[in-house]
């Protein structure tokens, strides 16, 4: 019921704004976000849910304003971003390098396949005791979780990307006797790049999730720990305020990724294009 309103409300926005000419993307995106805000405001106000447990959006924002004036919040935010960025960087670098290596050597690929399938679904949360054992509750414990979980996202995407190299392009490179490294650089990497971008976006979100979850459960410093404190104090509005911060951060990361994508993938069919009328 509520889900239905959630999807139709933002979808209606462009129809009303569509006059002559296309509406710019950011405007449409903003319309979607406004729709969500309105929904979050209305659902508790109309009594669909108890507002003590899901306060209206305006109250969350008020709590957020309160948070933003405290130094603790900013320290936590910086800690979260730092952990996330370091973990993501390690995961992406390792995923890309190993993915291209494994993907372009069939024997290696066949030999590692079963192991990858086995290790991939082991829940990173199950590794928490291990992480704590090794590093207590400092940064590195959460870092392990972040790297472990987001690494697979990148690796698998890169493997798929390498598999997708156009055979004619590959043969062209071979016939001109490109060195292995040149083949990787000029043929495999550009083909895999769209997949890497998708992998990056998936990994960025997973890394954020694990960073927050790790902070929440292990207690390493960061937004997650703040959320935990708010939760265990019954400060519902503060908790949601922090959750919103997490979500907004996710949106920003995606914007950044999209921007990068448009720059580096200008040649790709999904980005280029005379849009047919």
């Amino acid at each position: 019921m509520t889900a239905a309103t959630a999807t139709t409300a933002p979808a209606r926005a462009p129809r009303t704004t569509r006059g002559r000419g296309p509406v710019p993307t950011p405007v449409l995106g903003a319309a979607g976000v406004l729709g969500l805000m309105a929904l979050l405001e209305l659902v508790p106000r109309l009594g669909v849910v108890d507002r003590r447990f899901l306060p209206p959006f305006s109250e969350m924002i008020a709590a957020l304003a309160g948070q933003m004036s405290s130094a603790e919040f900013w320290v936590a935010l910086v800690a979260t971003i730092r952990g996330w960025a370091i973990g993501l960087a390690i995961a992406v670098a390792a995923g890309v390098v190993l993915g291209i290596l494994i993907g372009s050597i069939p024997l290696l690929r066949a030999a590692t396949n079963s192991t990858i399938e086995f290790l991939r679904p082991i829940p990173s949360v199950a590794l928490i005791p291990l992480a704590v054992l090794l590093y207590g509750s400092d940064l590195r414990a959460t870092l392990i979780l972040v790297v472990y979980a987001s690494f697979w996202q990148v690796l698998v995407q890169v493997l798929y990307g390498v598999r997708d190299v156009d055979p004619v392009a590959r043969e062209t490179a071979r016939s001109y006797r490109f060195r292995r490294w040149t083949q990787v650089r000029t043929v495999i990497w550009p083909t895999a790049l769209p997949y890497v971008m998708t992998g990056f976006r998936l990994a960025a979100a997973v890394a954020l999730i694990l960073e927050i979850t790790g902070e929440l459960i292990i207690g390493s410093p960061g937004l997650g720990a703040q959320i935990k404190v708010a939760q265990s104090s019954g400060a519902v509005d503060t908790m949601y305020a922090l959750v919103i911060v997490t979500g907004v951060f996710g949106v920003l990361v995606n914007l950044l990724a999209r921007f990068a994508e448009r720059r580096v993938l200008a040649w790709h069919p999904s980005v280029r294009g005379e849009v047919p009328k």
Partner: protein
Amino acid sequence: MTTETMLDVRGVRKVFEGKSRTVEAIRELTFSVRPGELACIVGPSGAGKTTLLKCVAGLLGVTDGEVVLEGERVTAPPPGMAVVFQEYGRSLFPWMTVRGNVELPLKEKKVPRGERRRLVRESLEAVELDHVADSYPWQLSGGMQQRVAIARAVAYEPRVLLMDEPFAAVDAQTRADLEDLVRSLWRRLGVTVLFVTHDIDEAVYLGERVLVLSMAPTLVLADVPVDLPDERDQITTRSTPRFGELRTHVWELIQQAKAGERSPEDTQVTTAVGPDT
């Protein structure tokens, strides 16, 4: 004798093994090409011309027999070879500009920068594409893409040049120009050329000999020497009676091939059509 042979195709057989369908594309092909020779290959659609070229290029393994280039058995793409693929569009890297596509193999060959620039410019001028050097391949028309692929091969200054229907997508006038370009290049550099085409006039006009293939499973149906003078010209050469004779002869051979003719002996008689008839 051995020094007289650049390329030796010995009893090559090629079978494609599919799950549901096994195709014997090439039954038995044997012929050799002298250094600096320009041999054209014609044959019905699906005869295995592309397959043959890929075997010669070392891109495809043979099922039986062997391909020997300059005394060495071909197992991987040999040095000093350039290939213009039938799927011209897909053999260009969409993530590089036209210039980048032409320049890349030269970089790989470690041609110094100044020299490289010159080669790229000259070859793009030769195919009349210098004005789109900074466009991406997918911004070009089919014929333009094909010309980029040709420019890339030309700039590479190979010793062996394999071309698979390279002029299929260009207009008549450009085609005539490119034919003359290939001939002048061939004479200037002494490069050995294997040229697949469907255009009989083109085969006769360009080649020193024309190999006619049968329908799959393929044999060499006839090996027609082209005894036209070395100095050729689009207007005069094409209007000589000998040119007419040769093209009629090849045309008949192809009709025989399409009619299912398979034994080379049967056609030996007609091959005797010589300058003295």
